[in-house]
């Protein structure tokens, strides 16, 4: 990517491996390679979408970026600071700039705390404002996310799913962050409520110049909110492009299959469907070569063993894994 602007956050070769222990002595016998060498940049003010099937490592990646999980290797750089190995104490001031919204608001909000104390807590932790100031801020936030002020003294379980997600968003906004990692923020919601929350996220971004990493499995939702979209498969990014390109001109076979699997709401439009056989292979023992080439039993799979399958630029703002199993022959020539 051109270095016009300094990225807000970038990561290089980020890996998160979870040890698998076995035997009597519980020695490490293997590793789940949940995130396996991901390099990405997030520009100020943009939304980067991250899609993939369950188990592809997208949530783990989101958590590693905000250091809720310790990366195994690689580095995360936030505004020129390498935060990969910062201690929790040194990390705390940076937490004001990076916040997270979770999938299940019922689980991420403490049922014993009133909505006011949930939203106020970030201020207390960071020692901001007097009591009265904090209360004023909480009211402001409630208003901003579209909740009545009377919500403050109630408890999260008294609210519907959509309203709870609004509480989660208010909490994430409290410290005026620069980046919010949204991990499946609307997947648990009904469509009519989902559109309310998506609109709210878009408006907040416009008003506060926020930057989102938007993780979801629903391609049409991701396409709707994102400037750029990264497609993840088995711990690796296989394609990265602006959202129009991903939709109109996907280059990677996996992206094409994902797109074709999204049910269309137009019953008159019957598209060619690429049906994938089987499931995502286990990240414990991933195929040696191209993971997706292996799933579709591509004839050129053997060539890819030991090959560098990292992302290469194919056109302006469009990157794809240099994998002979997954790109067209024409594109493969171009990538060479």
């Amino acid at each position: 990517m051109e270095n016009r602007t300094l990225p807000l956050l970038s990561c290089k070769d980020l890996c998160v491996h979870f040890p698998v222990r076995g035997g009597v002595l519980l020695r490490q016998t293997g590793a789940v390679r949940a995130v396996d060498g991901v390099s990405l940049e997030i520009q100020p003010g943009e939304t980067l979408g991250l899609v993939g099937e369950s188990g592809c490592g997208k949530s783990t990646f989101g958590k590693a970026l905000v250091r809720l999980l310790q990366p195994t290797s690689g580095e995360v750089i936030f505004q020129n600071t390498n935060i990969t190995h910062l201690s929790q104490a040194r990390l705390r001031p940076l937490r004001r700039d990076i916040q997270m919204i979770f999938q299940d608001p019922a689980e991420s909000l403490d049922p014993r705390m009133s909505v006011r104390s949930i939203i106020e807590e970030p201020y207390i932790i960071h020692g901001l404002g007097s009591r009265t100031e904090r209360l004023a801020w909480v009211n402001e936030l409630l208003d901003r996310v579209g909740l009545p002020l009377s919500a403050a003294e109630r408890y999260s379980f008294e609210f519907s799913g959509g309203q709870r997600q609004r509480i989660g968003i208010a909490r994430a906004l409290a410290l005026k962050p620069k980046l919010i990692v949204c991990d499946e923020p609307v997947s648990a919601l009904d469509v009519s409520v989902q559109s309310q929350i998506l609109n709210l996220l878009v408006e907040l971004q416009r008003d506060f110049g926020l930057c989102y990493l938007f993780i979801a499995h629903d391609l049409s939702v991701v396409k709707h909110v994102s400037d750029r979209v990264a497609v993840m498969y088995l711990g690796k990014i296989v394609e990265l492009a602006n959202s129009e390109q991903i939709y109109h001109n996907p280059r990677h076979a996996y992206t094409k299959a994902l797109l074709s699997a999204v049910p269309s709401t137009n019953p008159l439009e019957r598209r060619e469907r690429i049906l994938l056989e089987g499931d995502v292979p286990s990240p414990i023992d991933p195929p040696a070569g191209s993971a997706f080439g292996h799933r579709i039993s591509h004839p050129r799979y053997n060539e890819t063993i030991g090959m560098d399958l990292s992302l290469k630029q194919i056109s302006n703002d469009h990157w794809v894994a240099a994998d002979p199993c997954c790109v067209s022959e024409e594109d493969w020539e171009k990538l060479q």
Partner: protein
Amino acid sequence: MSETPKKILEVDQLITSFETEKGLLRAVDHVSFSVPEGKTVGIVGESGCGKSVTAMSIVRLLPQPSGKILGGHVYFQGHDLVRASDAELRKIRGAQIGVIFQEPMAALNPVHRIGKQVSEVFRVHQKISKRDAWDAATEMLAAVRIPAPEKRMMDYPHHLSGGMRQRVVIALALACKPSLLIADEPTTALDVTVQAQILDLLKRLQAEMGMATVLITHDLGVIAETCDEVVVMYGGRVVEKASASEIFTNPLHAYTRGLLQSIPRMDTPSKSLLHTIPGTVASLADYTHGCRFCQRMGRTSPVTRERPKFAEVMPGHWVETCPECYGK
């Protein structure tokens, strides 16, 4: 649709209520629809609209003791299931009506092998020997395209991925070649690529066996891909009913329209604001007698306080004719 195809299922003015601390709450309020032989009827709506309760009322699998069918009829091949005895029902469920539940892990018993669970269906309904049942079960797993079915027969549910588990549940539901399948959110817990596999599988098996399907889902995309007819539910009532192409090209009720417009589509420009339906679904205890979508929109004029008539406004296209929600 040709003239009056034979109906395999007719739900007529069904009323289902739940006994709660707040009294008897009506989750399904005079719901009627029918399923022609060999066709797929989709029931769509948001959580709490009564779609699952409707489906479970058909086979009388309501949570006990709170769930009660208080009125109406469910005619399955001429028999009224509402008045059937438990023994009759046991014979029909699994044999003539198959059910697929949303959560495959909850529908399978974690402590029994797949083989035992699938062959049990044959043992119960067809009274055949253990060995024959086992062979039939293996065949059934192959029919739902589970690779290496002989090996999978010896597995436990937790050995399988979500998609494979859902295939086992489908195998259970289809084992006795039912003439009606009730699928309650069969793909909601699955990834899109696996969802596409399962929907494709269901379509093929349906064509092979000539069975009719009631598909319950909140996903309008799934409806568009699979259904011949669509029933849109809101607040325990049917607000619109028509063929799938009618629903998507000519939705008449404000709720159906709102639902269709709120979905982000691949061809809408990024970051544009989506259409939203304000408010949230009222809880069962607060349902008004009048138009429930007007209740959500906060409309309280005298006309909205009457229960709107459900009328056929075009051939085969039925809609709740609330003056506010229809015709504006």
